[in-house]
């Protein structure tokens, strides 16, 4: 009898521990996010797309994390893509992933249970090319049924992340500040 009670007790304890340590279901995952960057100069427009962005959205805490496989950017021209990946630019062999970890600061203005379009203020840290900088941006969050879509449109100054080109063609053909747009779609469980 004692044994049975002990077994039940231990099982209950383990179940409770498991319940509190497993990741909460409020954390949603998107494995196929899209990032585009666009550079405009009078000489040339350069655009690249990446459809392999992994990100998580915690609807309870407002935490957002993006992880970007840097070699996943696809350019129109093969030579541009090689330059982008090379050690002179993004050095993607040395820095294969970039990351953003941030927090929605106006979480009380959002309701993840109610369909609509919301504007979220996001503050966090971005790590690109081995350099970490703080970043604050607005994001548009669209909630429709069990789908949550987060879209951002921001400008990044390349020199902030130690991506410099002072001479030659790159210095005239690549903008100092580029437009970056992102889109990730999450599916709510249940």
């Amino acid at each position, binding site marked *: 009898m004692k044994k049975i009670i002990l077994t039940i007790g231990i099982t209950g304890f383990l179940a409770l521990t498991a319940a509190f340590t497993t990741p909460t279901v409020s*954390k949603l995952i998107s494995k196929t996010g*899209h990032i585009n960057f666009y550079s405009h100069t009078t000489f040339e427009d350069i655009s690249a797309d990446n459809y392999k962005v992994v990100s998580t959205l915690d609807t309870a805490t407002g935490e957002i994390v993006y992880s970007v496989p840097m*070699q996943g950017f696809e350019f129109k021209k*093969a030579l541009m893509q090689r330059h982008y990946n090379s050690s002179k630019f993004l050095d*993607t*062999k040395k820095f*294969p992933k970039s*990351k953003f970890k941030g927090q929605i600061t106006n979480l009380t203005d959002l309701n993840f249970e109610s369909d609509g379009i919301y504007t979220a203020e996001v503050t966090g840290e971005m790590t690109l090319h081995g350099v970490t900088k703080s970043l604050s941006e607005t994001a548009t969050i669209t909630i429709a049924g069990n789908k949550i879509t987060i879209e951002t449109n921001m400008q990044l100054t390349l020199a902030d992340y130690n991506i410099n080109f002072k001479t030659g063609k790159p210095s005239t053909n690549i903008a100092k500040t580029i437009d970056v747009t992102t889109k990730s*779609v999450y599916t709510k469980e249940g």
Partner: protein
Amino acid sequence: MKKRIIKWSILLIVSSVVLIAGIMYYLLNQPHRNVQATAPDYQMDASALVNEYLSDVALANDKYLQIEGNSKIIAVTGSIIAIAEDLNQQKVVYLKGILGKAGVSCTFTAETNIQVENLKIGDKITIKGVIRSGAEYDKDLELYEDVILEKCVILHL
């Protein structure tokens, strides 16, 4: 005599300029590497590739990633655990790697999407693609990231 020298010099200059312009044009507009038509650099089980990354990510990156982005082309064999579509309407097939941890995510292209049509979960297949990044545990995401292959095509062995 003088006339001939001038004539030849002009011809030489013009042909050099044309040649250089031709080379420049080729370099600037050369096509992307055709991953589908290239033989794989490595062939292995999905679990072996994931395991290599989980045991030493730096070593695996050094082996598979290339400095200018034309990274290794790998043919991986594994069981399908999920099939999805990305925001560019490309099919994504997930192969089982190490259960409960990471797998291999294989993105097809507009041309090869059709190969995914008859696939179903549980099928064991071999997929060839270019590696974009490896598997590792990310403490901020709180999950294992998959090995990512793109430009995928199914290999019939």
